[in-house]
């Protein structure tokens, strides 16, 4: 890359309702809640470094967004997450919509207020969890119909309902409800889902009551079929959404097919809008997908694997509970400057992981978050 990467974002003290005033040209509509500035572009790949301005501050991309499913980043406090340099993380609409529910969260001042997280938040639509977590869910044109696992009542998650919940959560970025199908599926269902996702996108856009504070992203579908995906891209890019996610991948497909679809998508997405590749988080995938032109990533893997005592390192991961680490007096990673590596050895973590003190999990979670947020996408990724 020609230009050096700019420094990490600074925190704004209050949410900005209208962000893009300066970027908007003459004769444009009301300012959007998002502005993307491309800071540097790679000469050899499609990688780019950007500044993404959102209501709760600026985020430097490419960015890895840790997943804090139920309004918490597992054992890590909001203050710790902040000091690890995290400027945007995820909350799950399905989980939070069930417990504690959108009304309560709204009363608490949105998810930001409820968690006391003053940086950015991205919420998903709830669709993916329902389809993957619930045995009995049914998709119709209306929405996704399912039974609550807590009290058995029947619930319909429609595009309107999903946006309504996300409006109550007050996330800076919200995702459209999409018709999700497995990437290994073929046939007419894939095409049906793609078209429905477009219709649902339009319904979501209409339903968004806070477009000046919450950014609705579209999700490109079409499975592994280049024709379907291109069709979806053609249609969805006609809609004036602040950003696009590449969906329907990171399922059971082969790496080759996966990368083909990613690069096809980024080829047809506008340069000046952020590209969010959903569910991608393994280090190698991150590096490749940045080179293919993606800006934003999320994955539960780093935080989930931490809770099994697995620490992420450049060469893969260390299963710290294994005997081989009992007398290993190095830190997890010599080059890592996270609080865990600054103070603790693999041997201590090994011993602590074999106790029932949850602090062990927090040490590894902290390291893994730092690793993902700084590591593969850190200032050196340009390499």
């Amino acid at each position, binding site marked *: 890359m020609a230009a050096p990467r700019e420094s990490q974002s600074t925190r704004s003290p209050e949410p900005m309702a209208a962000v893009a005033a300066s970027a908007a040209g003459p004769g444009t509509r009301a300012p959007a809640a998002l502005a993307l500035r491309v800071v540097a572009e790679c000469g050899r790949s499609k990688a780019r470094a950007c500044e993404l301005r959102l209501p709760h501050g600026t985020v430097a991309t490419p960015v890895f967004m840790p997943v804090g499913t*139920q309004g918490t980043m*597992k054992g890590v406090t*909001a203050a710790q997450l902040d000091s690890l340099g995290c400027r945007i993380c995820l909350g799950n609409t399905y989980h939070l919509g069930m417990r*504690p529910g959108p009304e309560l969260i709204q009363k608490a001042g949105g998810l930001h207020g409820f968690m006391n997280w003053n940086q950015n938040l991205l919420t998903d639509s709830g669709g993916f969890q329902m389809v993957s977590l619930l045995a009995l869910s049914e998709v119709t044109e209306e929405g996704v119909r399912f039974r609550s696992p807590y009290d058995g009542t029947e619930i319909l998650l429609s595009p309107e309902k999903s946006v309504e919940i996300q409006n109550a959560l007050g996330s800076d970025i919200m995702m459209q409800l999409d018709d999700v199908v497995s990437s290994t599926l073929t046939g007419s269902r894939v095409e049906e889902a793609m078209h429905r996702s477009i219709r649902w996108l339009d319904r979501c856009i209409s339903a968004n009551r806070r477009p000046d504070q919450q950014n609705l992203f579209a999700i490109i579908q079409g499975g592994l079929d280049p024709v379907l995906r291109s069709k979806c891209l053609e249609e969805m890019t006609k809609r004036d959404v602040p950003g696009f996610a590449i969906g329907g991948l990171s399922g059971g497909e082969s790496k080759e097919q996966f990368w083909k679809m990613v690069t096809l998508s980024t080829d047809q997405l506008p340069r000046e809008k952020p590209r969010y590749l959903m569910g991608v988080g393994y280090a190698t995938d991150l590096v490749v997908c940045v080179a293919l032109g993606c800006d934003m990533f999320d994955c539960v893997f780093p935080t989930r694997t931490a809770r099994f005592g697995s620490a992420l390192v450049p060469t893969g991961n260390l299963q710290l509970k294994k005997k081989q680490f009992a007398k290993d007096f190095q830190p997890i990673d010599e080059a890592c400057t996270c609080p865990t590596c600054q103070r603790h050895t693999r041997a201590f973590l090994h011993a602590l992981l074999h106790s029932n*003190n949850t602090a062990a999990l927090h040490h590894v979670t902290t390291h893994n978050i730092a690793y993902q947020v700084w590591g593969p996408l850190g200032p050196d990724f340009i390499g």
Partner: protein
Amino acid sequence: MKLSLSKVAQGYRLGTLNNLGRKGDRTMEFPGCLLYTRTGSAPHLTHDTLQVISRVPVMTQLTLSSLAEHYEVLEEYKEGIGKFIGMPESMFYCSLHDPVNPCPAGYVTNKSVSVWGVGGRLEMTAAKFMSVQQALQPDWFQCLSDGEALCGEVFSAKRARKSVDRSLAFLDECLKLQEQSEVLRSCVMIGVIEGGDILEERLRSARETAKRPVGGFLLDGFHGDAMTKETRLQLISAVTAELPEDKPRLICGIGQPDEVLECIEAGVDLFESFFPYQVTERGCALSFSFDYQPNPEDTLLQQNGEKEEGEIGDCIDKVTTTKRVPETSFEINLKEKKYRDDFGPVVEGCSCYCCKNHSRAYVHHLLVTNELLAGVLLMIHNFQHYFGFFCAIREALRKDRLGQLKELICSS
């Protein structure tokens, strides 16, 4: 180590321990408590989250039961437990057992005492015990002792006598071994007072232990339900009367605020801080007031915050589960439905990280959804509250207001 008393009255002592630590430059106030840890770490807390707590004790309690199985690792590490666990700045007291997880009875012989680690039972002869201490290099450690004076559920005079005899024998053996090791000579041995509920045995244990060159005393076997409160306090007072003034008195297994105050009045100086951990584990937050000289406005705020508490009042929940100690009147249970939409802090007026940054509703949500952060936030609050309580005790002693504090605590 030098003990300075600034006040002695009605049984209690207020003072400082000076010239502590490797460099002899550290100080500890008493009455006070030690930081409770499990496998060398404060429960739920990493260094960063421990740092946000005010008044963390200068001395940390380690348990031999959680660390003995790592003996080989520590031997190879060579630099002592403080550095190994990432707390190089702290002082350490190593107790034999964990106050929260009492070990099964029947595993003490004339030659050894067993401790239970994660990997199972570890038999500690005096020699093995001292080599483990050599690898740990704590500032203070409880001497190997026989803490069993019960035969089943009741005290047995015969068993009590044996516990005293054995503990003295272990003490003498360990003192000999200490003499032979340069590393161990720089550690302070804490002698253990045993004797069950037999006054004669308690006195014998106290007098005999006091004859040995120990640096302090641990009053063992006063926890649990086997003794009545009256007996316990009588015995503690009798024991401390036999002990030299210039050495600290520790007690194990006592953590409830009212019991702490009673023991202080009976001459005890130092306590453990496992109680806030137990409160945390049952999803509760310490809420008792130790502000015996409150601002009338604050009292009103506290009362309003607690107004629904009146229904539950100060009755102690007698429902016990196999693992959990029942809730006390010193805490609120944040899992209760009424906290679901309570956006106030866990305890009004508390300045801990949890109360400054989060609401009861949020902690309730974390508990209901079984999230790890619940333990982190509650542990922060509970430790800070408890350490604040000890600070208030010292303050009350300084100002001769112990009676008022006691009244406040016992009416919780």
